[in-house]
């Protein structure tokens, strides 16, 4: 962390080597996060590039009161969500009907412990995971990814997406319920 602060202040003063170090520190995280949102490697690489371009351009506005990673997550999310706004909402499942649905708790179609391809190295499982999350609107996807997959707090997620904490919780619970049920269907 100390090292990161030093790198940031050097980078702010125009030190290219320090900027390159910061890029190196975060490129894998940013690439993975971008991939997890758009499920497309080529797009992920473009978004990573745009994110660091934005970072360099506006690093002077970075106050340092939040983590640089949080700031970068915000830039990636904005890039991804901007792209998603161009898509028709009919491309995605409507989650309005999921709200407090007791059916979510209904018994599993299959026992998940007996699924033979549980390893995430398995292409069949990867395809199921891609297919399910692609049905989620990116506004929901990004909440699930920041909060559950990247492990940010509810408050951090809310601040990055400029949502209220209850809105994050509501989207998170719908996204989780949808993914879990959709994967359950695919396992049949």
């Amino acid at each position, binding site marked *: 962390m100390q090292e990161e602060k030093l790198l940031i202040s050097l980078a702010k003063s125009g030190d290219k080597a320090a900027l390159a170090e910061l*890029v190196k520190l975060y490129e*894998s995280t940013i690439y993975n996060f971008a991939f997890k949102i758009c499920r497309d490697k080529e797009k*992920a690489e473009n978004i*990573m590039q745009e994110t660091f371009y934005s970072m360099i351009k506006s690093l002077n506005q970075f106050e340092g009161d939040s983590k640089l990673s949080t700031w970068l997550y915000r830039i990636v999310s904005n890039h991804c969500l901007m792209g998603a706004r161009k898509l028709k909402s009919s491309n995605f499942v409507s989650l309005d009907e999921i709200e407090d649905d007791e059916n979510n708790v209904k018994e599993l179609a299959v026992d998940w412990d007996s699924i033979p391809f549980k390893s995430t190295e398995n292409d069949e499982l990867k395809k199921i995971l891609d297919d399910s999350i692609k049905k989620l609107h990116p506004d929901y996807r990004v909440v699930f*990814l920041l909060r559950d997959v990247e492990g940010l707090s*509810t408050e951090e997620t809310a601040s990055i997406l400029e949502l209220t904490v209850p809105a994050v919780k509501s989207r998170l619970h719908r996204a989780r319920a949808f993914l*879990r049920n959709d994967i359950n269907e695919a396992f049949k």
Partner: protein
Amino acid sequence: MKENEIKCKDVVNHICESLGEDLNSAQCIAIKKHLGECKNCASYFKTVEMTIDFYKKYNVELPEDAHDKLLKSLGLNT
């Protein structure tokens, strides 16, 4: 919400463990108790956790030339 009023619906809407909330709040304690008693909710909770875990473990490697390409496009290559 009183402890004995926890319903399956409440559990689905409010899985506190992974929501990072105060684990000792009356509601969380009631939910944990319910999870211990209700097979369906316990299985829901477990499979939501598995779902999250699947997505957590599904990572991609940065393509080999991506780092150099990136630095070049940013004008940071030396």
